[in-house]
């Protein structure tokens, strides 16, 4: 994003957070978006998290060649990696692709087919009506998905490790329960909150200012995913630097 885009993004967010015309309509829209973002992504996030946890365990076991390092380390490394980095970031990047492109193309299509103009002519604050429910659903559902992802990733590690014989069940459980620092969960949830905001607001911005037709909507959708991913990674670094 260059400075002009960043300025327009901030102005759009200002319009998004104006007072809603009718709260009951916005609440319905928020629950609909929660269903789309949260429930609609649960299957994908579950599969990805479980496999990443399993693969992580195998890779950690593969790299631990010294007999002096206890195998319980496999569990604790997998736990901390999943909680602090893999679950929030991988979940966010997957959602940026799945949710981000959908948001951008939905709003972009509404823009080019004059549906957003129609909302404005009716006297409705179109950024608020279209984007606010998505952002609120994003910042509530992404942290929930990240929590589920953490559990499944650690669980996937257990399954992968024990099935392959890389680590015993007792060693793995001892590893994930030893020296656990609950603060890592706080860091992960802060990341998830920030990522939830990015995943919904950046694609919404890209879609809202589309000009042209189908080609431009598709380009905006691609741009939305790319910009969201880069912003997620940059914010990941910043939040990690600030909180750890």
């Amino acid at each position: 994003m260059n400075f002009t885009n960043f300025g327009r993004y901030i102005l759009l967010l200002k319009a998004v957070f104006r007072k809603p015309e009718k709260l009951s309509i916005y609440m319905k829209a928020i629950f609909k978006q929660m269903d789309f973002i949260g429930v609609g992504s649960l299957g994908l996030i579950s599969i990805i998290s479980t496999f990443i946890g399993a693969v992580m365990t195998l890779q950690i076991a593969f790299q631990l060649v010294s007999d002096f390092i206890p195998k319980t380390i496999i569990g604790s490394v997998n736990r901390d990696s999943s909680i602090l980095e893999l679950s929030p970031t991988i979940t966010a990047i997957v959602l940026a692709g799945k949710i981000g492109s959908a948001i951008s193309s939905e709003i972009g299509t509404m823009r080019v087919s004059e549906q957003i103009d129609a909302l404005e002519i009716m006297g409705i604050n179109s950024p608020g009506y279209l984007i606010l429910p998505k952002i609120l659903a994003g910042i509530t559902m992404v942290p929930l998905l990240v929590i589920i992802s953490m559990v499944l990733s650690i669980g996937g590690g257990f399954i992968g490790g024990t099935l392959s014989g890389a680590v015993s069940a007792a060693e793995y459980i001892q590893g994930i329960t030893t020296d656990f620092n609950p603060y890592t969960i706080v860091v992960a949830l802060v990341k998830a909150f920030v990522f939830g905001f990015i995943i919904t607001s950046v694609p919404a911005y890209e879609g809202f200012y589309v000009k042209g037709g189908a080609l431009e909507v598709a380009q905006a959708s691609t741009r939305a995913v790319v910009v969201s991913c880069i912003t997620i990674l940059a914010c990941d670094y910043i939040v990690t630097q600030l909180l750890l």
Partner: protein
Amino acid sequence: MIEIKDIYKSFGSNDVLKGISAVFKPGVTNLIIGGSGSGKTTLLKCMIGLHHPEKGSVEYDGREFTTMNFEEKIEIRKEIGMLFQGSALFDSMTVEENIMFPLNMFTDQKRSEKLDRVNFCLERVNLTGKNALFPAELSGGMKKRVGIARAIAMNPKYLFVDEPNSGLDPKTSIVIDELIKELTEEYNTTTVVVTHDMNSVMGIGDYILFLHEGKKFWEGSNKEIAHTDIQELNDFVFASRFMKAAKDKF
């Protein structure tokens, strides 16, 4: 009544509107006509606040619109109904939900009252019983009529219509034109129609504003338009062989 005074609008170095002034009265069908790129849609968008003119004013019954803040504009917009060129129906909503949408947003009516209003509007545009259909299931003419039904749902004082006949067959075009005229007279709305369809001009043009290269070239009624000496207007009105033949005959 809507009064526009000395409207200027440009996009970059391209001056689209160059000092347009006009008065659009209630109860009559006001038409803005002109060739492609003459600035008629831009003028319409300036009037409804989708574009901000660099200079000039738009007054709705004496209320200056261009200098209003966001909240003040909303109050005016609640009195505006608009039919877009592509109808602009909400894809994800049924016909009923589309028409009920402004009622849901701005009224505290019970659902039964809103449904009565929806059914009345559908009946008014001859689409009774089509409540459950989605826009994708409608023909072009039906979409326009649902667009009109949605536009009149809130009993608008001002009705704007952008290219109502584009993409429609001549018979459906006449139905839409007559519907616009009937609604205008029945509810005494100030109706502004942007068109380049000569059938509309001759059929419903009570007041016609002709734009050419961003300037007001002529204003008058459909009875006067065939008898002017303005070259640009005659080139526009009598561009088709049919209109030329009609002129020669009369």
